[in-house]
Structures are given as C-alpha cells and as structure tokens.
C-alpha cells in the first residue's frame, strides 16, 4: 500500500481539515492498535514524507482535472470542490455562512499587513497615505488581523499581523502562498539605476527648458520634452 493512497482515504473521510502532524500521530496510533503488518510499516512515517505524498496527491488530482481538489489551507489538508461548481453545491448545502465581503480599503490595508507584518499602524498609514483606524477596527473585529507585539521605538506602539483565519478566509496555504510574495514582502522600492527621465526621479525637464505653459499647467497634454 502506498502512503499517498492511505492519506487519500483518510482525508476523504475526515470531518475537518487535517495537518501533517495530526496525520503522523494517526499513523503512530494506528500502528499501536493494529494487529496487521501493514499499519505497522507506517508507524514511524515522517512529517516531511507525509507532506511530500500530499503534494503529489494534490498534483495528481489537478492533472486528472476532477471537480474537486486536495487543498491545503492554513497548513491543514482537505478535499474541496472547484469554485466553478458553486451554484449547484450552494443549492444542495445552502450558502456558506460567511461575513460580508471586504471593502477595497480593507483589502488594501489587509494586503499591506499581510506582506509587511509585523508592522505598526503608523507604518500602514505611511504606505496608504490615509488614516486606517476604522479599517483596522473592522479587520480586528473580523479576527483577520491581531496585535502580535510591540515595536521597539518610542511609545512602544503595537505591531500587527494576520491570523490563521486570514489564511482560511482567502484559502491560502501559508503566508508564502500570497500572490507575488517574494516581490512585495520586505524588499523596498529601489530607485531605478537607469533613469528613464530627463531629471532623476521624474520627467520634469530642467527649468531652463520648461515652457511657460508647462509651468502653469495650462496645456496638460504637452508631453515632457526629451532630454537634449
């Protein structure tokens, strides 16, 4: 018997998402109770082996293009249907009991927290350019973000991070699973080496080449003059 097939059978019958650690414990407990030789063979299966088998299984399901997938959300695995079939399933089981969708400001703020955590309110406001008090309250009430510590700066302001519920809400496996995670996480925006414009940082031509209209903004359609 293959590890992945056992995992498939177990997850198929599981009442809730299961983590690799719980699966490992399940293998150990089964070996303990069972008389047969087969379960004993999997007594000391490693967590990494379980994860690898789960990933292989998930790939197989995807390749087979079934209407359901084996997915990992917030570190726990389960079978879930593909979104395309939602209308029929919704009729069958009823609409999911989910809070209302997040507003655009809430999503933006949440994105900033998710990629840059832990960070303070001031740092969030620095990026968004507006106060975030109301939005933060909504996000905290919905338990998508929480205070995770205090910054080591004067006043010791609280720092914020996302919760496990955040991963569940967006169906993410882990924070590394965020779209474009490597690009957005901690790397600051670099000033481009090759300046695209006449003057460093912007397209404004040096004052001696500026026309009066441009300065006064009366003819907004005049493109910036090319560099001599």
């Amino acid at each position, binding site marked *: 018997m293959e590890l992945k097939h056992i995992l498939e059978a177990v997850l198929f019958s599981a009442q809730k998402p299961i983590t690799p650690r719980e699966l490992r414990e399940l293998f150990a407990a089964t070996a303990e109770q069972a008389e047969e030789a087969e379960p004993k063979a999997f007594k000391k299966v490693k967590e990494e082996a379980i994860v690898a088998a789960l990933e292989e299984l998930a790939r197989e399901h995807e390749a087979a293009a079934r209407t359901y997938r084996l997915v990992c959300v917030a570190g726990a695995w389960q079978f879930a249907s593909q979104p395309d079939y939602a209308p029929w399933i919704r009729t069958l089981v009823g609409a999911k009991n989910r809070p209302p969708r997040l507003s655009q400001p809430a999503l933006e703020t949440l994105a900033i927290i998710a990629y840059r955590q832990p960070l303070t309110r001031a740092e969030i406001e*620095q990026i968004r350019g507006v106060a975030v008090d109301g939005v933060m309250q909504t996000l905290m009430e919905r338990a998508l973000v929480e205070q995770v510590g205090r910054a080591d700066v004067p006043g010791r302001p609280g720092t914020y991070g996302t919760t496990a519920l955040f991963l569940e809400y967006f169906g993410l496996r882990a924070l590394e699973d965020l779209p474009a995670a490597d690009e957005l996480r901690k790397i600051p925006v670099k000033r481009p080496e090759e300046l695209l414009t006449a003057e460093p940082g*912007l397209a*404004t031509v040096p004052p001696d080449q500026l026309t009066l209209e441009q300065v006064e903004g009366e003819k907004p359609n005049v493109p*910036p003059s090319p560099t001599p």
Partner: protein
Amino acid sequence: MAEYKVQFEIFEGPLDLLLYLVRQEEVDIYEVNLTKLATSFIEYVDLMRELDLDIAGEFLVMAATLMYIKSRELLPKDLQVAVEGEEEGEDPRWELIRQLVEYKKFKDVAVKLQEHELSQENTFPRLPGKPDFAADVAPVRPQVSIFDLVNAVNAVLKRFATQDTRDIFEDKWTVSEKIEMLVNAMKARPALKFSELFAAATSRTEVVVTFLAMLELIRLKQIIITQPEPFSEIEIAAAPPAPAPAAAETHTTSTVASITGEPQPN
C-alpha cells in the same frame, strides 16, 4: 462637475487620487511629470472645496508637498542642490514616486486578494458525516466531580514532592497567563488530556496556577471536563455553545484554595 463628484467617492486618500491622475496621463509612474501632476491635484482639491466636500487633512498635506516640489523645480539646478545639502534629506520627488509605486503594488495585490476571496467563497470543503458504526446511543459524557480533579492534580503534584518547599520562589506564573495558554491550546486541538496540561510544568506552583486557571475556565463555562470511562484519564474540551449547568462553581474555587494551602498567585 457631477462626473467629478462620482469619482471622488472612490478616492481612498491623496495617493489614490495621484495614482488616478497618473493613469489619466497614461505614462509610467517613473516618467510622470510631477509638476503637471501637482497642478491637476490642486485642481481637484479646489474642486472638492467648491463642492463643499470635507477635505481630509491628508489631501492638504499632499497638496503642500506637491507645491513644494513644483516650487523647487522653478529654481535653477545649482541652487536646488544647495537647498538639498542643507536639508540632508532625500529628493522629495523621488520620495513621492517611491511612495506611489509602493502604494500601487499593494493596490494591485489587493485585487488579487479579492479574487481569492471570491474563489474561496465558492469553494466548498468536503465535510462527510461521521461514519456511524456504534449503536445510536447518545455519547456518554460522564461528569467529573471536584474530588476526581483534586485527586488528579495531587497525582501530578507528587512529581514535585521531593522539592524543598522551604525555598522561596518568585511567582513566575499568573492565572490569567495560564488561562490564555489553555484557551490557545484548546483552539489548536479540540480535546486535551489532563496530564498534557501539566506535562511542561516545572514546579509545584506552576501546577497549582495551571490548575486554578482550569477551574476558572470551568467556572466561566469555557471548558468542560469529562472522563470517557471510569479510571481513564480526565479530558478537557472546549464547552459547547449551550451553557452547562453552573453547579458548584463557587464551591469549586474555594475548595481548591484550601487544599493547595498556597496563596493564590496573581
């Protein structure tokens, strides 16, 4: 005018408005003409004033920054450098562009998160019913009496029996801390064994504090204590939403305080 009014509602602050203006220019952010942008931005702020909208302070700050940039532009370059040297600051133009680029990235990724939100809304996990092999009798949940609990905690305390009790220890643990720890442990796993609670305890005091935390949670009806079968280990589980009968709650805490014989740490 009316058209502007509608648009205003979507601006989530000065950066949002600036991005909108950059999009209108149809140029890369790095190539945008800030002087022109400043003019358009201030036009909008004026318009907001005309429409008698409440102008958020952030818009005025941004307008001031843009005006500063614009005024700097008017100076010959050699004079600009002198000013910059005094300030030791970064080029304000670059500072603004960097902020815009960063904000735009997050704005874009927020759209992706929204897609995730939608797709997750339409994803249904498989939640099979529990395969029911046993006869359909209601699951027994035998009650545990306070004496069972006291016996159990005494068994744990035996581990520390040899310690010299005359030593004075600092109170390192508080009941509220332990309550938090318990609540978190319950979040991770639905049911804990009694012994697991004390597995990590290093002293008699810690055991007592953990025990008090557990009793407090029972009193607050946050957890329920069961013993699956006689003489098996006591289990701790999160309480079901329906409140359990609140028998013997005051009695519980007082008993414990007396049997441990130690002052209740705080």
